[in-house]
């Protein structure tokens, strides 16, 4: 994909076994968006036009174009051969010639930052959030977190609280995106394990599916919160997740 201005606006950010995580710069840039639109098929361009505001429109176009570029490279197909299907809760999957393609992927974006995770196989989910200090955290804390998570948050103040809030949120959203359930799963009904709240990697099992283990890696830093979750035991994450 052309990189207007000669500067790359997306690139690889992390490798975890066979999983790759790409970072996409979603800063407003008319040239990039024009280039990206050329990668979108007709239905995606209709979807792009439906957005009421330029920010969401831009984030959709840039992330979908980079996703198409990455998937075409991985699958060895032309952009025109690549289509997308959607699971019952809206999670997209790649389709070539009316058949699901052998690749797993997930996309997240927040403000000026996008993450795209992909692997040859295995379910995975990714979430990124830029820290928003104006957000009503208390409403969400009472809605999406369990008792011990709320207790941990209650002990913190200022940016420490903001950091943990976004960390827990991205871990939860990455997990429900990985399963494909999305927000049909009530995220208040499970808690991020204490070890994972304090560290950056760990495992997780949903209370209702105790035999299925997921690995989680926290990708966040000073600028943003981000997490990836993937099936433990699949080849996706290898042994170093």
């Amino acid at each position, binding site marked *: 994909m052309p990189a207007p201005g000669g500067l790359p606006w997306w690139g690889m950010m992390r490798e975890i076994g066979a999983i790759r995580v790409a970072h996409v710069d979603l800063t407003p840039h008319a040239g990039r968006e024009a280039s990206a639109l050329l990668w979108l098929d007709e239905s995606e361009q209709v979807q792009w036009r*439906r*957005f*009421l505001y330029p920010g*969401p429109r831009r984030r959709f176009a840039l992330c979908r174009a980079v996703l198409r570029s990455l998937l075409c490279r991985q699958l060895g197909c032309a952009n025109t051969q690549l289509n997308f299907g959607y699971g019952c809760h*809206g999670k997209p999957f790649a389709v070539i010639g009316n058949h699901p393609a052998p690749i797993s992927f997930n996309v997240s974006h*927040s403000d000026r930052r996008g993450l795209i995770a992909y692997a040859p196989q295995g379910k995975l989910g990714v979430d990124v959030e830029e820290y928003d200090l104006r*957000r009503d955290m208390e409403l*969400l804390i009472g809605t999406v977190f369990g008792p011990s998570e709320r207790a941990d948050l209650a002990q913190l103040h200022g940016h420490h609280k903001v950091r943990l809030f976004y960390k827990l949120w991205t871990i939860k959203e990455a997990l429900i995106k990985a399963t494909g359930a999305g*927000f049909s799963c009530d995220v208040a009904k499970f808690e991020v394990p204490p070890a994972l709240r304090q560290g950056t990697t760990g495992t997780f099992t949903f209370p209702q599916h105790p035999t299925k283990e997921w690995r989680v890696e926290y990708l966040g830093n000073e600028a943003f919160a981000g997490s990836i979750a993937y099936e433990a035991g699949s080849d996706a994450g290898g042994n170093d997740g």
Partner: protein
Amino acid sequence: MPSTADRLQNLIAENLEVDGKPVSTPVDMNSSLTAIGVASMDVVAFARLIQQEFSVQLAPEQCTELATLTQLAEFIDANS
């Protein structure tokens, strides 16, 4: 008594932002939260606000699955 659609518009005006700016209302009732570009975190919070405002059980997923704001208002009227 304001209609459900009017109350929804008020909730949107008072609580939803895109890129740090309030969503302009009235929003076309044939549009959707997805088309507005509401972030997932805000959808969850908005679902909670709808529950409180209308005393209705509404999962965050339903906020985006319902194709239009009109359908969301109809769901609220049918279930509150």
